[in-house]
């Protein structure tokens, strides 16, 4: 889970064979802890998150998928990679707040 945003909800269902993607902005980010260094192991996501609208989407921010997501070595060491599908399913209040704040200013 993201270090800075507590309210993000992860899917956590049983992962399947599909490897999760991350967008260009989130490239290199660990889906478990947001770390940007020491990538270690590919992150697999569940079937629900790998078909339909979600296919090829960034598992962290929902943007356009660009490359495979990797867990960092620390998450692998502490077995956070085995918690379940790491796809973030909620928007997160800070992002929504920001959206409306921008919208208000933009008007």
């Amino acid at each position: 889970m993201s270090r800075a945003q507590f309210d993000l909800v992860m899917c956590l269902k049983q992962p399947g064979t599909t490897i999760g993607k991350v967008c260009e902005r989130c490239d290199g980010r660990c889906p478990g802890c947001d770390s940007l260094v020491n990538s270690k192991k590919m992150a697999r996501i569940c079937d629900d998150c790998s078909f339909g609208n979600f296919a090829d989407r960034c598992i962290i921010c929902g943007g356009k998928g660009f490359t495979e997501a990797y867990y960092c070595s620390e998450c692998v060491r502490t077995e956070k990679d085995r918690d379940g599908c790491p796809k973030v399913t909620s928007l997160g209040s800070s992002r929504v707040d920001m959206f409306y704040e921008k919208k208000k200013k933009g008007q």
Partner: protein
Amino acid sequence: MTDLDNRAKTQSVKLTGQYTAPKLVEDEIMEEVENSPVVVSSVSSGNGKSVYSKENDYQRRKYDTIQQMEKAGDESKSYKERMKLKSLENGQEDSSKEEEKGLERRKQRKRRWDVTDEDTNQIDKKTKVDGVIETSSLPTINGIELNDEILNKLLPPGFVKIPQPESYKPRDDELPDFSNFDASGNADGYMIPQESKMLVEAKLVNPAMISDVSGIGELQFFKEEDMKYFGKLIVKKDVPPESMSVDEKKEIRTMRLLLRIKNGSTQNRKTALRSLTENARFLGPKVLFDQILPLMMEKSLEDQERHLLVKVIDRILFKLDELIRPYTHKILIVIMPLLVDSDLVARLEGREIISNLSKAAGLAHMISTLRPDIDSSDDYVRNIVSRTFGVVAYSLGVQNLLPFLKAVCHSKKSWLAKHTGARIVQQIGMIMGSGILPHLNGLISCVADSINDENAQVRIMTANAIASLAESVAPYGIESFEEILQDLWGGMKKHRGRGLAAFLRAIGSTIPLMDEEYANYYTREVFKILSREFSSPDEEMKRTCLKVVQQCCESASVLTKKYMLNEVLENFMTNFWNRRTALDKRVAGLCVHTTVTISKKVGCAEIVERILVHLKDSAEPFRRMAVSTCDTIISEIGSMDLSDRTVHRLVDGLLVAFQEQTTQDPVFLNGFGHIIKSIGIRSKPHLPSILSTLLYRLKSKSPEVRLQAADLITQIAPVIKLCGEEDILAKLGSILYESLGEVFPDVLGSVIAALGSIVVALGAASMNPPISQILPTLTPILKNRHVRVQETTIELIGKIADKGKEFVNHREWMRISFELLEMLKASKKSIRVAANETFGHIAKAIGPADVLVTLLNNLKVQERQLRVCTAVAIGIVAKTCSPFTVLPALMNEYRTPEVNVQNGVLKAMTFMFEYIGDMSADYVYAVSPLLEDALIERDLVHRQTAATVVRHMALGCVGMGLEDVFLHFLNLLIPNIFETSPHVIRRIMDGIEGCRNIVGPGLVMNYLLAGLFHPARKVRHAYWRIFNEMYVQSCDAIVPFYPRLDGVGPAPAMEGNAATRTPDIPELDLMI
């Protein structure tokens, strides 16, 4: 009241914290406005920012729904009452129809969920008939006829009898409802209401004068409409709290908090929100929702205010839990319209709330709340209800909703219910995606019978539902669709127009699910109809055709290249590739997508050659469509099979399209860039013409044109290098260097980006002018405030530091690193990241010592963000130049007796140890005294950050034989487990987790046993938290370390008395 005040009121301007023009100017404007012939509309909801003003007519119907509900008093009624009312309405309709048709009453049938009790209907009808007979002249209450004489006695003086207007024709089938009338409790009769004192006072207060409300502090604004809801705060501000009742106090408190959340500043809002959430159960749902819900429906509400209120509801839902049940309907009424909002974020918000609400209220309650609206005659109501049911199914499981859904879809009574049922299925498909696969059979059996329904709308909606299901489960689940394929096929043959479109889409969506043989058969048959409908002028049919062609092309092998070329392509191109298609954005987008899909069948050249001509079309939207298609096709398939002649024509067409554009659309820019990149070396003969166009455009008067030209250079610089045209690149470089004096910041940013891409392509050594001349020019540009300029400049400097550090002297680098420190303050994250990376490059170029001094000095500043970024930069420098060059200076800096500096040092160490991973083993003993000090520091943040350092170190050197030192850290960490601040406790837990990975769970278990069964819950809680985390990671490893609890059970009996001895209870049983 003055004229001005009136105006202020009617125009609903913001009333606090606003800086207005001088009085003189204002008066002048006012005069002008008064004299102008145009009447400015001053409707209170005419505020351009409000949600209301942006909604279309369909979305505005929510206000009608609510009004109707309020009028009917629906909100306070129970499910039974609402259903009874509903069935009464329907029952009357039905019975009148039956009478008209002269049908005989059918036999008593098995009771269904939606068939009303026959008896109640009969009774109701009977009472009505009786009523008509008895009260043919006047209404009667308790046996007394309400004639003039009686009424005169009952009513106070002042009432006058008004004669009936001529146009009034009483309906004899409806009578006033006196069933709830309580004669005894209403002895005084109806009184003409006096205007309440409070309201009068509220009217006297001028909202323009309100700058801050007592006990709330500074507000961002206070609108006139707020007075309606928060007027009490203003009016009652002088009333001492002792004289208020408890409920009143609660109400005032809630009001105050809500106003702070809605109108307050960010900080104010946060504390208020937290306070409201924490006290939600104390304040109670009634007080809360009575104030929030009317506010939500206010027409002048702005997007952000609505969002904040939605957020409040979301938070208090969690706290109130089952207490919200009585308010489910009310909440739904205000939240459901969010599901049809034009804004995706608002729709997601609505979805989240409904999901939480249904989890709190339970399925049965949700069904009974929403049930009466399922066969509402209003399409809007049914639409939002079906969407809501979709969300409910998503959050509570389709399986649980299926029986109800089946009943709705098979409703015998009204087609409306069936229509809604199909729509719910459609929504479930859309929301859940492939998650519906396990329930596919059930969902299809719900809608299967409606395919041949007598009502056309039901049939169409059913086809749509099936299409949605098939799309979401593709490519699986054909078994479930097999039984309905025949019906779908029959439907497709029977329908025309809208119906045909729906059925075509349904069949088209099932084709990707089929195995090859079936898919080929169906595709061939569908294409017969499709090619007929290609020429249909109907937009809906056009979209359907495009979508189905796309789906068939993706799955069926029967659509060979030959077939497509001979049978489909010409027809397709003539009907869809015209200017008319380009005008409708949705159709145009679909058309592009479909053309790309076809090109995968027939090859890139066939399609590109056909749409080349459109690149030079006179209509811009059509040109854009052609460029976008060429771009996508070539990016996806490549340009290998394009002949040289085609490439020539393509580049020519692209140049025309690029030059002719009027709106500087990124589609043209990216299309051109991608295609040139794909053509690669084959573009060499065309480079002169491209470059002459670009150079011409670089000198254009219009900044947008210059910007685009620079952007295109950024994209094609690598291709120019590929073509071996270094001279051209160098020339371009010098031209761009000369353009660095650009005044428009956006253009300047692009120019610098283009320069950067040339530096990368050409190499720093062969740049002209030399790097030593470029970099000093860039240094002052770093001071530019524009985001894009900053970002591109920093990136360029980073590139130069990486590739051509030797061309610049030491002093210049130092100057730049000073400037870069300022960049760490930037609000945009990418700038800070770029600046940090550049620090790494510079440190590598000139050695860490000088850069480090600059950075360490920066730790003393006040701003937190600046310090954090500096710490990250130190971490990066440490990584690039090895930790041993940096660590001594860092540790020395820690001796500064200043909290910020020490924290900064710890933070830098956090990043450093995270970055270097297993290299940390060499430094553990060296930094342990420092960490020891930090872990026993009084300051919370010291301990928190030190715990993170310990964690990173620990996870970096598992299995390297450093147990001793980490056991020491564990000893220092354990006393912190009772911290309450969420951030601190999280980091402490992480620290302990790190240590546990090194020293092993057995040792940690020894620490925990002391507190796992402690009599105080707070103590136990902290210990169990650590235990649980340990259990998740290494439950098998802790088994040998469970304690032996020998003393449990009756004391062992004396020797020789073996018969009475109870067996020892194995300790594991106790633990489990």
